[in-house]
């Protein structure tokens, strides 16, 4: 005999099962993914609306630094070219800045280290949930961008990296709000030492108000572009293309 409670219970269990398999079906539907993705644009617009675009990420004290700064992603790029540079202590490493700029640049690493430096003790937040605090030293990106001179139509900066996953190179992109932010630097030092390879030597982008995957490591070229559609998979970054991560990683 079916009791009322048993009946209600089986309805609840059935509804739960339907909900779960329904979620997986919806998750596989491109149209529904676009509906969910619409919240990403809303989040970016809402955060930029209620927050100061120039607001600085918290800078911590020396005593707050993580004893171990976890390295994630690629810890050693596979390319022989990179490994030759690494063996030579990156003595001949050059950063290219091109695309929609008036003066394309090829800047030796030594020159970048001689630029006015910014040191900041900031928190690195991984999309997975963990955080590590480190002391970063590097050149403000704005100095290099001003030297190259962005064209009017430039909207994004694409960071091309020396590492890859399989045959797919890593890259990331940010917009000009973050590009000219005072804490956005090309870091060459971590915790008072030259940047370790596992953390992105010789140059790593710090874009302090976004999650870790935006902080491109092993940066070798910065390209100014008007839109991201023609760059690799078109979504603005390696993880965005391969795993559908959000381009805006401020949350």
């Amino acid at each position, binding site marked *: 005999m079916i009791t009322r409670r048993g009946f209600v219970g089986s309805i609840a269990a059935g509804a739960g099962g339907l909900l*779960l398999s329904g979620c997986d079906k919806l998750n596989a539907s491109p149209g529904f993914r676009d509906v*969910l993705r619409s919240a990403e644009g809303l989040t970016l617009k809402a955060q930029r609306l209620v927050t100061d675009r120039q607001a600085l990420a918290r800078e911590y004290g020396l005593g707050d630094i*993580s004893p*171990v700064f976890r390295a994630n992603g690629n810890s050693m790029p596979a390319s022989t070219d990179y490994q030759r540079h690494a063996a030579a202590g990156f003595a001949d490493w050059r950063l290219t800045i091109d695309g929609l700029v008036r003066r394309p640049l090829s800047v030796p690493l030594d020159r970048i280290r001689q630029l006015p430096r910014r040191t900041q003790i900031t928190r690195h937040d991984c999309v997975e949930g*963990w*955080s590590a605090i480190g002391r970063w030293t590097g050149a403000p990106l704005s100095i290099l961008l001003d030297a190259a001179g962005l064209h009017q139509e430039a909207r994004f900066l694409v960071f091309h990296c020396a590492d890859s996953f399989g045959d797919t190179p890593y890259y990331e992109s940010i917009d000009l709000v973050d590009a000219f932010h005072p804490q956005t630097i090309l870091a060459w030092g971590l915790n008072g030492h030259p940047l370790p390879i596992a953390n992105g030597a010789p140059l790593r982008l710090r874009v302090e*108000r976004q999650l870790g995957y935006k902080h491109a490591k092993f940066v070798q070229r910065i390209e100014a572009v008007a839109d991201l559609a023609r760059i690799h998979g078109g979504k603005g970054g390696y993880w965005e293309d391969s795993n559908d991560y959000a381009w805006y990683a401020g*949350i």
Partner: protein
Amino acid sequence: MDASAQPNPMPQPVVVKRHLASTRIWHWVNALSVFLMLMSGLMILNAHPRLYWGQYGANADHAWLEIGSTMNGRGFLRVGSLRVGTTGLLGYRLDSNGQPNRRAFPGWATVPSGYDLAAGRRWHFFFAWVLAIGLVAYAAISLGNRHWRDVAPRPDELAPRHLWQEIKDHARLHFPTGEAALHYNSLQKLSYFGIVAILLPLVILTGLTMSPNMDAAWPWLLDLLGGRQSARSIHFLCAVLIALFILVHLLMVVLAGPINEVRAMITGWYRVPQPVRHPRESGDPAFASVPDATADLDYRIRGNDEGVAE
């Protein structure tokens, strides 16, 4: 208790409009979005099932809570120094193909069911907007129509004697009937007030504190909550409390008469449970004034076209 199950049903059951439309819409929007947020939240936690206190925390740092598995296939949950085996549920299980699966939470508890951090985050942030907009709208409406007064506990209801009496009544499954069933009792008020005024705002604030951009704009979030990793831990504890609330809430609905209760939350119409006299409990103060309550109720319903309780 459902009125139809009573040994001496009333000749004309009293049916009243119990819930406002705003409450009903908000309830079901929340029911959906809270479930999806809990389950997509477990998906996100699967990416790093360790919780810390303070500003930072990663694998080399001490986690106060950890879900994991041993090399020889034992799942475990560790809280502080207490470690319990959870093989099959948390940390380790065999999937339908007999292959080991070492995710912290099993697929049936997460949205989506397979590991997909990007999708879990997308679900979570979409329904975070639904939940937050709903909360703000409901708070505004409840302030406007003074519905908040139905939920905010009165000082006399918070007296220890009164609360103890209600706890005893709940434990004995003595649910209010007649007039008393048209108000929230103190335990309900405390639960609903705790959820709406404390837990939901706290879960939103701790969620925002995990956002590096919000931390830059509103650094007081980090001071208020003791750091991003503390906020992440509190976020998880809030989710546990919300899940517990849902469990007790569903249990109470089932015990109080699920069809009547669910119908009331869908249509607004609620069949008022009528008192039953238990001779051995006739001295129970909770039942002392019940017989007069129905007459008073009839009067109130006739005197109020909308029939909305309070």
